[in-house]
């Protein structure tokens, strides 16, 4: 079975894509729970795209929960706040999910303190200008909580020659297993709506559309219930399909506009913000608070107590897995969803602002994937049928095999690929297409750097 279904008459959506098993049942009914403090929190200085934040505290300093510990370094950077009251033991490199070592605070929380959050300078939202809201978002340390970690204020900043007419709020959450956005929309619908109100003010967009996939009807209902009549916010329920949560796909599905190759949503007058990000903005900004914890789905077959947890930034995978219990034959821990997430190489990797999920698989599932025999491409065309960007993964794969990376980039739009994994998912020859594309992209980027 190819896992494709006909999409005719199923409502607004984008072309192509796949229907992987959703696997959301185990956690989508679990209420968000507060996660305990680990004995040691590892808070990286770089949890966003752009320049790492600059520490404003030193080793051996005592910090209070919510206190600013690293300030934004320039426009493409955001602040970092202490996720717990405790002592900074050291500032040292730590493994990150992308395989590199990155500097981080090693924070030892106080065992018996109340862990109350320190309040910042609240923003008077009724009088605040767009600029002030953006500055507040930056100093609250908010980045896109959907996974990519792009500084939200930078995304909302509209150049003088452009405008946004539509604010797209992304509540799609199309990755299997993940249910954080679902729970946030259910439990914190008012925060979402408040946040969207600020975002509308900051971007001067005419309207906001909150997009929810049809497998979360309760989330759409909960948002509808708190929708104020006077604000131009609507809720759209879209058919279930992966990767509808990708910015470009969502904009095409909702608005029928195609974001130009290598362009930005703003080029088609849209801005896309994750619904969890909107909720944090709605919750933090009115109180001048900083982002120091986030909702994470911890699930997958190897986790015993699956659920959605509000986890302090810096909590290590080891602490999460040990706290919730794992199956004895746990073999792979993925940060993010199973389609695009990265497998952790170490259990000392911490939760960061971009961590949407911790999905653990047992040897049974991963072994099955690994042991699948790879065949030569039989040109069945399944990958071409599913690629949401209408690339030709089969052709790209053949070029990759021969190391013809520049042809992949120049003739076949390799750099447009955002690695959703649809092609690899459906490939009956089990060719690791996405992996080949990643290697090719990295090689081409390296070549470009050494030239320029």
């Amino acid at each position, binding site marked *: *079975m190819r*896992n494709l279904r006909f999409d005719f008459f199923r409502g607004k959506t984008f072309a192509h894509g796949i229907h*992987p098993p959703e696997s959301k049942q185990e956690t989508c009914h679990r209420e968000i729970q507060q996660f305990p403090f680990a004995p040691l929190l590892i808070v990286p200085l770089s949890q966003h795209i752009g320049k790492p934040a600059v520490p404003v505290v030193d080793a051996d300093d005592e910090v209070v929960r919510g206190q600013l510990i690293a300030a934004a370094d320039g426009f493409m950077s955001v602040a970092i706040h202490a996720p717990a009251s405790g002592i900074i033991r050291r500032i040292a490199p730590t493994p990150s999910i992308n395989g590199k070592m990155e500097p981080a605070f090693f924070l030892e929380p106080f065992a018996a303190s109340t862990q109350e959050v320190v309040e910042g300078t609240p923003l008077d939202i009724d009088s605040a200008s767009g600029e002030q809201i953006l500055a507040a978002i930056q100093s609250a340390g908010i980045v896109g909580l959907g996974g990519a970690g792009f500084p939200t204020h930078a995304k909302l900043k509209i150049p003088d020659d452009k405008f946004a007419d539509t604010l797209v709020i992304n509540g799609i959450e199309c990755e*299997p297993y993940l249910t954080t956005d679902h729970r946030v929309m259910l439990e914190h619908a008012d925060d979402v709506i408040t946040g969207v109100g600020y975002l509308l003010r900051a971007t001067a967009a005419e309207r906001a559309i909150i997009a929810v996939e049809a497998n979360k009807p309760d989330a759409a209902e909960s948002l509808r219930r708190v929708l104020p009549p006077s604000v131009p916010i609507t809720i759209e329920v879209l058919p279930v399909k992966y990767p509808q949560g990708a910015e*470009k796909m969502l904009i*095409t599905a909702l608005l029928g506009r*195609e*974001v130009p*190759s*290598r*362009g930005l949503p703003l080029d088609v007058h849209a801005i896309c913000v994750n619904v969890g990000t909107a909720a944090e903005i709605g919750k933090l900004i009115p109180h001048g608070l900083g982002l120091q914890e986030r909702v994470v789905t911890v699930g997958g077959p190897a986790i015993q107590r699956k659920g959605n947890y509000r986890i302090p930034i810096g909590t290590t995978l*080891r602490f999460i*897995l*040990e706290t919730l219990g*794992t199956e004895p034959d*746990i*073999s*792979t*821990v*993925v940060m993010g969803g*199973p*389609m*695009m*997430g990265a*497998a*952790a*190489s170490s*259990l000392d990797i911490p939760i960061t602002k971009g961590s949407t999920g911790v*999905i653990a*698989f047992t040897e049974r*599932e*991963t072994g099955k*994937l*690994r042991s*699948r*025999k790879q*065949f*030569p491409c*039989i*040109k*069945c*065309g399944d990958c*071409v049928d599913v*690629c*949401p*960007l*209408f*690339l*030709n993964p*089969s*052709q790209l794969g053949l070029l990759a095999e021969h190391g013809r990376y520049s042809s992949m980039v120049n*003739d076949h*739009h390799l750099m447009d690929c955002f690695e959703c994994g649809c092609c*690899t998912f*459906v490939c*009956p*020859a*089990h060719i690791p297409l*996405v*992996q080949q594309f990643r290697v090719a992209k990295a090689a081409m980027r390296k070549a470009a750097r050494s030239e320029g």
Partner: protein
Amino acid sequence: MTPLSKTLTIQSSPHIGATSSVDSIMRNVVFALLPVCAFAIYVFGISAALILVVAVLSCVLTEHLLCWFAGRPTTVGDGSVLITGILYGLILPPSLPLWMVVAGGVIGVAMGKFLFGGLGYNAFNPALVGRAILQAAFPAAMTTWPSESVASFTSLPSSTLALPLTKPVYDGISAATPLAKWKFEQIPTDTTDLFMGTVSGSTGETCAALILLGGVYLVARRMMSWRIPVAILSTVALGSTLLQAIDPTRYAGPSLMLFSGGLMLGAVFMATDMVASPITHLGCVIYGILIGLLVVVIRVWGGMPEGVMYAILIGNAISPHIDHWIQPRVYGTASRGDVV
């Protein structure tokens, strides 16, 4: 809380995968072909069974031995050569000497597939390559058709066991195929007979009904491009309807054209060979129309009654060029290759 000491396995995303695989596709094509094989044996008797067995064995053994000589693991297990063998057997005349079956099978797999690099790299359908070689080398044997009414489960046509390189002796049971009857004598054949396959012809290509059934099964399981057979068959239907309207005494109508000869088997099981057909939807349609046109042209104006084999082989040759020109329009670009 138990301390976790575990070596993690790192793998690249996606961490889940669909269940389809090359071998399951191949297995299903074999399933789809089994009724056709059974019918072939029912109509043409023990000689058809022998041809199919010998065809399969020669193809499978050739691939196995070639892999062994080349010092790589055998690729017989992927099932593709099994399909080649079955298809190859199905497109041979039922009374063909078995030694010719072996010769065509060996050459088809060796030259049509292995030489190009094996599964995934063959430019032509290997079964058709084998048949084309035989057609060129043994034209008489390849155009002598026993009548379907002599199905025998007790005796063999004397030609079947002819010694290699001798001139086969036929039992005097030969009959013209529906296409030949029309081409040389303008005698039409009953459509029901054509559809049900109770006519003279190659081992497994006579029964349009069972071939279509197999095709529908594969399309329903999403293991075949329906666009290719639909494009071929509608082009042939349209072309023959037009020609018939011009001169019904000279040109055969759509029912004869569609259900006779190798068209059905070719359109459903040969032209759809994934490796040798285009990859995009539009490419598949163009490829199908092209093959359909070639079938009409060769059958109507060619020197022999049948033309599906050549039409598909030419289609195979053009397929990479179609793929080169028909690339999907990349998202966010106005046309192929341009940035908006």
